[in-house]
């Protein structure tokens, strides 16, 4: 098992390396002088030249890459021209917000998605199944920002249940930043009113993100369960007298979870991208919104850092997924 993990880690490093090369290449090859873009059109020629030298833009491509790699490994991701802060500061500020959102949405989608899928798979062709299929179709067809807008419209404006923007309402004092997860921090600090408020704020964005996942997961679980129901070993268990309850929750769930977990890696990727859209609609101060902003402003250092972070996150998730799958499914483990 350990060998497997190390293998995957090495693989990921190679891939990340390639990714950084790709991004860097694209960034530097694109038209326009980044230094000029950074300084704006009012900059003087000397300023641009000075910055160009600073950014090593005058050196050949491999040299530029080398300098860049060096500073990355030192932990210096450069300065964001947009926020005028080191990129790492920006990241530290915004990543927890998005992480909180994504985790919450994962939680929602896992619980609802699995339950829906299991019930729909077991009670095939019932009205419940029909309803869950309808939700699945819509969830898959509606892009996250559409879902976000509809939720916003329904729950905030029509029903007036949830607030519209941000992580906390205006004027609320955030709890001391231990983990930067407002919900966690406020719980730890005993400020339950803040917790409640934060929860209220996070519900809608998380749900918008979660819908696509629920749809996906529900479908996969449903198919998996109803397929596995046909398998001989289920018939065998019924014949040998193992009660149905045990059959479903113990013996069916595990093999049915396998495709779901496999898909989770991809699902995480979609969460990341959809987070962009949801954060924009709900004005959630997160990493994704930051990413969009820096991209729109052609903030080179930040863009490269952002893409790298996403690549790393993605690789980690994939490795975790692979490990979990090999744990759940001995066939994978034993065939390595």
């Amino acid at each position, binding site marked *: 098992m350990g060998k497997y993990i190390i293998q995957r880690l090495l693989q990921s490093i190679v891939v990340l390396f390639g990714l950084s090369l790709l991004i860097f290449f*694209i960034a530097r090859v694109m038209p326009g002088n980044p230094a000029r873009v950074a300084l704006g059109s009012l900059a003087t020629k000397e300023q641009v030249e000075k910055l160009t030298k600073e950014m090593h833009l005058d050196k050949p491509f491999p040299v530029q890459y080398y300098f860049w790699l060096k500073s990355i490994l030192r932990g210096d991701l450069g300065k964001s021209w947009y926020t005028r802060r080191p990129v790492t500061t920006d990241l530290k500020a915004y990543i927890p917000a998005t992480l909180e959102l994504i985790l919450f949405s994962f939680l929602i989608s896992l619980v609802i998605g699995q339950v829906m899928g299991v019930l729909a798979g077991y009670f095939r062709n019932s009205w419940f199944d029909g309803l869950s299929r309808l939700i699945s179709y819509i969830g898959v067809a509606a892009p996250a920002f559409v879902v976000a807008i509809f939720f916003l419209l329904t729950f905030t404006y029509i029903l007036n249940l949830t607030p519209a923007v941000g992580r906390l309402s205006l004027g609320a004092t955030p709890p001391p930043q231990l983990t930067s997860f407002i919900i966690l921090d406020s719980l730890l600090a005993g400020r339950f009113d803040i917790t409640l408020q934060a929860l209220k704020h996070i519900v809608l964005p998380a749900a918008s993100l979660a819908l696509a996942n629920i749809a996906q997961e529900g479908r996969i679980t449903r198919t998996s369960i109803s397929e596995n129901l046909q398998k001989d070993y289920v018939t065998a268990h019924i014949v040998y007298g193992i009660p149905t309850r045990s059959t479903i929750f113990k013996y069916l769930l595990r093999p049915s979870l396998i495709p779901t977990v496999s898909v989770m890696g991809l699902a995480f990727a979609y969460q990341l991208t959809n987070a962009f859209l949801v954060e924009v609609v709900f004005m959630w101060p997160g990493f994704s919104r930051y990413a*969009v902003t820096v991209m729109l402003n*052609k903030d080179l250092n930040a*863009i490269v850092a952002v893409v790298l972070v996403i690549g790393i996150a993605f690789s980690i998730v994939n490795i975790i997924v692979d490990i979990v799958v090999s744990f759940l499914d001995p066939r994978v483990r034993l065939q390595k």
Partner: protein
Amino acid sequence: MSRIELLAAALSRKRASFSKGWYKYSRNPLSILGLTILCLIILAAVFAPYITPYPEHAGAFTNFRESSQPPNPTYFFGTDTVGRDVFTRVIFGYRFSLVLAVVVLSLSIPPGVIMGLIAGYFQGTRIEIAIMRITDIFLAVPPLVLALAITVMLSPNLFNQMMAISLMWWPWYSRLVYSITTSLRHEYFVREAELTGASKLHILLREILPNCAAPILTKMSLDAGFVITVGASLSFLGLGVQPPKPGLGTMVADGAKRLPAEWWMAVFPAIAIVMVILAFNLVGDGLRDMFAVEEV
């Protein structure tokens, strides 16, 4: 048998398998629904200038007297902030979405398939390793991100958007075809072809590729919906179709600023997006059912 008879036999076989395929497709009412919606949308988009009430509104047109009207008999979906008919713009907006889907898929599928075939066939060689590593790198980044990054580097408009999305779409196809090719690589019919001296090109195109056709077609139609999602999302963020052109995502973005009072400006384009993606998804599901081997 004469050549004519052989040809007739082949054609009637084709027709028979086509009608059998259609029969299997039409089993599911949802697939028919999807196909119907899709056809309607395509027809509407193609004949947009002729069937919409105010074709001139699909562009730089202003009529402030009629601006911000809720849906009414004159303007079915209401008007936007500068007085343009939302209904017309939505129909024209479909044009952009459909063109996007067609262009992206046409650009990304052939290279992806070719790469997949080559990588899968020449297993264990450096070619395979090289191609698959490149594929992995592209796949390591979620689609939207890369498209975003690229579009931003160039100026945002539909053309660049299409290029960017195409660039990161092909790896999915190469991976799909790769996995099919590797599994078929050692099947008997391929070995036989090799032994009887068929050229590699023949093997790839005539033996392996047809086996990939069904999954590719299915994925293609599901992807069409997904490409439109990506396109709409990019437009929503301001990186795709630029105003005053009526891109669906752009319209939702503009309309979102007007919530909740003037809801029609965002809601109708949003529904339109869902409709077209839903239609492609249903058709894709139907295709998958059609190609599935039936078991009694």
